[in-house]
């Protein structure tokens, strides 16, 4: 184990190299640029490739090429850059190529701003590209998770032969926390399906193209099976003080950190609130939410968006108990006091109060 | 162009054999005619019959081929034309 006080964005790079990643293709964008900068510094030293591409479109297609050779590869960007990558992500999913993409979200739409917003949920979790595909999405909320989930993302990407996105906000990317890195690096697996320019792989083909409808249907059914397996095997969440909670508050990324402090404070005031933090945004922890819905009096979803994840919560809850939403947009970060007030107000509403 | 003394194998009776010969894979030919146009000695032509795709495949007239390979390089199909050459090694 090696402990370091490190920015979340830089932790991603070190974790990637420890996970056996050997190439990084990216384009600068705030607030994700530290990832490219750290990659530029470390990837060549680690026997890998760093290349600043001409655009995010080129970046993701370079990732496509690198992934096709069987090496572990990644890119990183933020909102507008992620939008440009969507076609490439669809191709990666269609061609079943594994890769890791870090999305350090910022404000939108359009140029928006560089402040931490969570408005990328729809484009990342719902698949902003064309066609029937899914990306597996992890939402780290600490420096340590930037490391751990990055390493996990490479393993899961290879296991499912699918792109995995690490989606977090600029706040988690920019802040420094102590991170315990593993003392040993992983040896990346050899992939028999890859195209490696040798006799063994000469017959291999990487492609997302299936001209005949029956053939494409067969391929898409195969992808669906994979996604169903991911739903069974990959869902992750963190529950905190939900056991006796009357109100369960749901948030991810930096919001979940503020909520933890806020819930600590409302608990001191005698309000039984708990926190559910999705760690995987896809697959979404809907079973856990369904389970909680059977006994809690209400959910409060907090996002730094106009309400995107809340749709998934409502789908999981299915009408009862009530799901309320509180959102800040534009890159404003809700304060602890603001969230305390919001939870207190919800607890005072009669239908929620009943058994608190 | 028609040579009556052709035995169909490019080896003419009683005279020097042709240096080359052309084989056309009938089902691979699309009848584009580029080989006919390109052949420097004019020994290729489009046949009268059809292949299963409905093209008139090219054919070697049967004699006079020099084995130069020009028709092979003019032909867009990978395996429609094969050019053979006469060798002295037996």
């Amino acid at each position: 184990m090696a402990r370091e006080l490190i920015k979340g964005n830089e932790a991603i790079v070190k974790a990637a190299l420890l996970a056996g990643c050997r190439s990084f293709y990216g384009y600068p964008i705030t607030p994700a640029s530290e990832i490219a900068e750290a990659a530029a510094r470390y990837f060549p030293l680690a026997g890998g490739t760093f290349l600043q591409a001409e655009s995010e479109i080129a970046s993701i297609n370079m990732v496509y090429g690198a992934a096709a050779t069987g090496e572990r590869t990644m890119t990183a960007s933020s909102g507008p850059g992620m939008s440009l990558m969507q076609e490439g992500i669809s191709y990666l999913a269609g061609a079943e190529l594994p890769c890791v993409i870090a999305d350090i979200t910022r404000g939108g739409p359009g140029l928006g701003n560089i402040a931490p917003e969570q408005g990328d949920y729809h484009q990342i979790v719902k698949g902003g590209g064309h066609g029937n595909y899914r990306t597996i999405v992890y939402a780290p909320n600490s420096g340590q998770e930037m490391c751990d989930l990055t390493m996990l993302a490479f393993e899961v990407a290879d296991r499912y032969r699918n792109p995995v996105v690490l989606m977090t906000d600029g706040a988690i990317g920019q802040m420094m926390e102590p991170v315990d890195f593993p003392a040993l690096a992983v040896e990346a697996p050899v992939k028999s399906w890859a195209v490696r320019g040798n006799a063994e792989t000469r017959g291999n083909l990487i492609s997302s193209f299936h001209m005949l409808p029956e053939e494409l249907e067969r391929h898409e059914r195969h992808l669906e099976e994979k996604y169903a397996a991911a739903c069974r095997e990959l869902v992750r969440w963190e529950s905190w003080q939900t056991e006796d909670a009357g109100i369960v508050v749901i948030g991810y990324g930096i919001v979940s950190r503020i909520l933890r402090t806020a819930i600590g404070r409302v608990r001191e005031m005698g309000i039984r609130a708990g926190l559910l933090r999705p760690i995987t945004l896809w697959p979404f922890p809907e079973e856990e939410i369904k389970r909680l819905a059977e006994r809690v009096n209400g959910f409060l979803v907090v996002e730094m968006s106009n309400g995107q994840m809340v749709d998934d919560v409502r789908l999981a809850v299915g009408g009862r108990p009530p799901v309320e939403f509180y959102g800040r947009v534009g890159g404003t970060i809700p304060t602890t006091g603001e969230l305390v007030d919001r939870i207190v107000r919800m607890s005072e509403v009669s239908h929620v109060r009943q058994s608190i | 162009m028609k040579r009556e003394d052709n035995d169909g194998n490019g080896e003419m009776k009683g005279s020097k054999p042709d240096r080359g010969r052309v084989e056309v894979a009938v089902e691979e030919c699309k009848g584009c005619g580029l080989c006919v146009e390109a052949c420097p000695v004019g020994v290729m032509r489009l046949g009268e019959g059809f292949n299963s795709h409905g093209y008139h495949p090219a054919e070697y007239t049967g004699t006079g081929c020099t084995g130069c390979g020009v028709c092979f390089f003019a032909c867009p199909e990978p395996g429609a034309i094969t050019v053979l050459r006469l060798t002295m090694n037996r």
Partner: protein
Amino acid sequence: MYVKAYERPQSLYREFERKAEDRRSTHYCPGCGHGNLHKYIAEAIDELGVQDRTIFISPVGCSVYGYQYFDVGNIQVAHGRAPAVATAMKRALPESLVVSYQGDGDLAAIGGNEIMHAANRGENLTVFFINNAIYGMTGGQMAPTTLLGQKTATTPFGRVLQSEGYPLRVGELLASLEGPSYIERVALYDTASRMKARRAVHKALKNQIEGRGFSLVEVLSPCPTGWGLSPNEACDWVREQLLPVYPLGVLRDQSEHREGWVRRRAIVTPAEIPHVLGLRETAETVTVPNRERISGANLHPRIKIAGFGGQGVLFLGKILAEAGMHEGWHVSWFPSYGPEMRGGTANCHVSLSDQPIGSPIVSDPTLLIALNRPSLERFEAEVVSGGTIIYDCSLIDVAPARPDIDAIALPATTLATDAGNARVANVVALGACLAKMGMLNREAVTHMLDDLSREKGKQEVNGRAFEAGYRFVLDSPG
């Protein structure tokens, strides 16, 4: 005896098993130049003996099915992006032979950026660019290379200069860059032009094998269907119409001067990676914070440090967080960022605690360190009742107005000047902060400062500045 002299190249499949039907002939129209170029490429791969090493990239366009024909490693990619895909494949596999095969829509329109940058980087790649002045696959629409006046499905009255501009001369455009090694334009309309094309194909592939950098062959190719001509008429059209606009010949050739143009990676084993990353093994037993030494101190300080850019505000915060981490506290450091960042001010938030830290954002500090007046004025109200404000009274000519906080007027800049450098006012503030917090070991912090500046002189200045700040707080009444 007759033996085969010219036959289907080895590097093309004997039967096209990936093809849905008719596995003997290609999907190309009669007289289409793609098939010729396929043959020439495969022939050259055979001659060069690199079939196993070759990776063929099929684009989007009529040649999308290239992988059905080439018996090599195959990959099909997004429209226009082949040069980007090729770049990464070649970087990963420097010993492979990566071939990008692109049409005029793919390369010259949608993929204009990717080809330009791959060429400019001088990637050791081979690109074959089929220019037939039309979009074939989508049904005969205008290409960037369509001739003026040429009628296509999207220029039904002919390409008009004032609307669609001039035909794009990709070869010349790329040849003007320093990066490419070899660029030649060839054509497929008669025997002589086909033979030249074969030689250019061979050279472009050989260049890559020999590590001579970026090679591109632009091929003027007949599209009888797209042009509405017979195959032979299409050949005439190439000669009569395309050649005057797209002159044939070598447009750039630096091949002889480009040896060893191979980007190989350093060989680093997984065991060496942690060292490369500068990771140092730390003891598994985590230091437990010494709470006895700090009895009476706030065990959950939330600190906001603010000033103008260049005062070392972020650095001050990092030292606090780093020192806290080494002493076993949970810590977080959060920089001024997004909407917080305006007017050249900088601030950071540092939390230390014996419990895991929830929000790393300090919206209600227990300790505010203000190094300029705007910072004091902006954040004074945020400080919790009973909290502390340390402010640089050598620069700030007002005092905090609140009666419910402990205000320490620290002449940081003056003390820093006395210590030898006015710029170390942040270190004076660090000393003051440590004395006030009482939970961090001062020796550990001064060692950390020494580690950060290797120069003896600077170390001494920092040491004096730290001591001055530290003593100022201890010696203050109350």
